């Protein structure tokens, strides 16, 4: 916590997480919530046995995993978006720049069509996220002119390619069950999140987020230009590949857990840059907290606004796009 703003965001995040625990179709009165907490933490008098089991199940098996997933996904997308913006010296890029989201979506859809195994779907999602990014880097390597620009173009090509492949899968999928499954998946949703998934992805996501955040200083210098960075003693290639690897890892994992959740990785770093400035050493931690907070609140909205749940990807887009249009005017200060 280098700056008060980080402390503030972290506190808000804790409050929002606790608050989100109380939200849901099944009403858990604050009284029960406190009683359960009192029993768990301080060993006070317990609730009625059956009720305690029910409340515990709702809180710890249903709501808590989803809350953790929302926060981690929000933080991951925001941090990798922020890191990519510095790496590519362009505040308008998003984590999907190198094709990771298109690749991961294709991977998921492919496995859904070919197999019924959920594990295989997840593996394929992760794998093709990396394949798409590798493809983009490969294209850049072949031409090796100005590497950053070639990387961006490679990413565009890779993204378009995997989007086309995804269309083929959709076209050939069984329209009665497979196609809807794929389409819903691509809209993004956290409704399938359970304890098992969260316990598997938490560690890699946290590690990835931290590794990227700790590259803040290097990213600052890289965003001044490749040669300047090199003359300041930075191993440009290594830093670039490390950041791309971990950003790809955490982005592909978000698709694995929640499908396509757009716009977070673009808007959150923007908002944070307006608040804390462009220095990545303070910016990246701020985007992590802000992204977590944002997606947590959006998920609350998407599961509570109507009696049915709206896919979270739709909500992030609906809120993100107009917001982005509004901040664009002020955003120049942070990067021009």
């Amino acid at each position, binding site marked *: 916590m280098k700056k008060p703003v980080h402390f503030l965001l972290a506190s808000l995040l804790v409050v929002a997480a606790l608050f989100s625990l109380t939200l849901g179709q099944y009403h858990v009165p604050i009284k029960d919530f406190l009683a359960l907490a009192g029993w768990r933490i301080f060993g006070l008098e317990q609730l009625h046995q059956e009720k305690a089991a029910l409340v515990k199940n709702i809180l710890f098996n249903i709501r808590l995993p989803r809350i953790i997933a929302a926060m981690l996904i929000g933080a991951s997308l925001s941090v990798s978006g922020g890191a990519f913006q510095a790496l590519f*010296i362009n505040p308008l890029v998003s984590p999907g720049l190198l094709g990771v989201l298109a690749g991961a979506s294709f991977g998921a859809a492919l496995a859904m069509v070919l197999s019924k195994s959920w594990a295989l779907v997840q593996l394929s999602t992760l794998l093709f996220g990396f394949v798409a990014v590798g493809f983009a880097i490969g294209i850049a390597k072949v031409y090796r002119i100005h590497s950053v620009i070639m990387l961006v173009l490679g990413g565009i090509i890779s993204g378009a390619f995997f989007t086309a492949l995804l269309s083929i899968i959709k076209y050939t999928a069984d329209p009665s069950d497979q196609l809807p499954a794929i389409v819903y998946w691509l809209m993004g949703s956290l409704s399938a999140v359970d304890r098992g998934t969260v316990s598997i992805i938490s560690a890699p996501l946290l590690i990835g987020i931290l590794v990227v955040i700790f590259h803040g200083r290097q990213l600052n210098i890289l965003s*001044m230009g490749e040669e300047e960075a*090199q003359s300041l*003693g*930075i*191993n440009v290639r290594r830093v670039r590949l490390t950041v791309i690897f971990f950003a790809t890892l955490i982005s592909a994992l978000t698709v694995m857990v929640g499908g396509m959740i757009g716009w977070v990785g673009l808007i959150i770093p923007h908002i944070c840059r307006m608040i804390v400035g462009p220095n990545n050493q303070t910016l990246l931690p701020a985007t992590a907290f802000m992204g977590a907070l944002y997606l947590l609140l959006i998920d609350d909205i998407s599961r509570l606004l109507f009696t049915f749940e709206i896919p979270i990807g739709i909500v992030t887009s609906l809120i993100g796009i107009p917001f982005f249009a509004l901040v664009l005017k002020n955003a120049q200060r942070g990067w021009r």
Partner: protein
Amino acid sequence: MSALITVEQVGFSYRKRQVLNRVNVSFRSGEVVSLLGPNGSGKTTLLKVMLGLLQPDTGEVFFAGRALKTVSPKVLARRIAYVPQIHREAFAYTVEDVVLMGRMPYHTFFSTNSPVDREIAAAAMEKLEIAHLRDRPYTEVSGGERQLALIARSLTQGADVFIMDEPVNGLDYGNQMRLLSGIRNLAKEGLTFIMTTHFPDHALMTSDRVILMQQGAVVADGLPEETITRETIFALYRIDVDVVAVNGNGRVCMPVWSTYGRAKN
């Protein structure tokens, strides 16, 4: 004093175009040296080879007696700083953020800026008289101030060799002169400056030595008054000039207009 940087028989080509051709030059500690030559004569490439940003195809660069390629980038960064031409594409870091980047070669992966780092950066900004710009966005200060910030960053880096690519490019006359006199003052403290320029006058004003380059080769290397003459400037640029002494305290290089026609009144 022995040479700090020695460039020996260095050749370099971009794809098939030969940019440097058997270049031999050396630089002593505390010198101010200007590289002068037409566009495409290989000045910038030579700077980049000396910085280790480009690997020469032939020949070798030595820094303090060691082959440059065997010096780790981090160690090199503590001795040699690069001041590139001014750029605008970066994010709006504060001037202090930019100056603090100079502490990079002293940091391990996890360390954060210490109070000592900030003091060093503050001292550098003080020295270049830009302390008042500390919290201003780097992208919103003037070109001259930006250049001063980059020099402050080089000081913060602890470097004693400053390699500058057309430092006055894009600055107005006042800022050009302030920057050049700043360079002279820093040179008095024993810092070494190697810079490219397009202005023979600037080379005459600031340098202890001038190196003329043409088509990838060094064509002259010596005292400013010996290297910048009517003949050499004509050979480099196809422009007739007079090099004249002014008030006994300097020389200026002045084009002889009549040779290429002046608009008639």
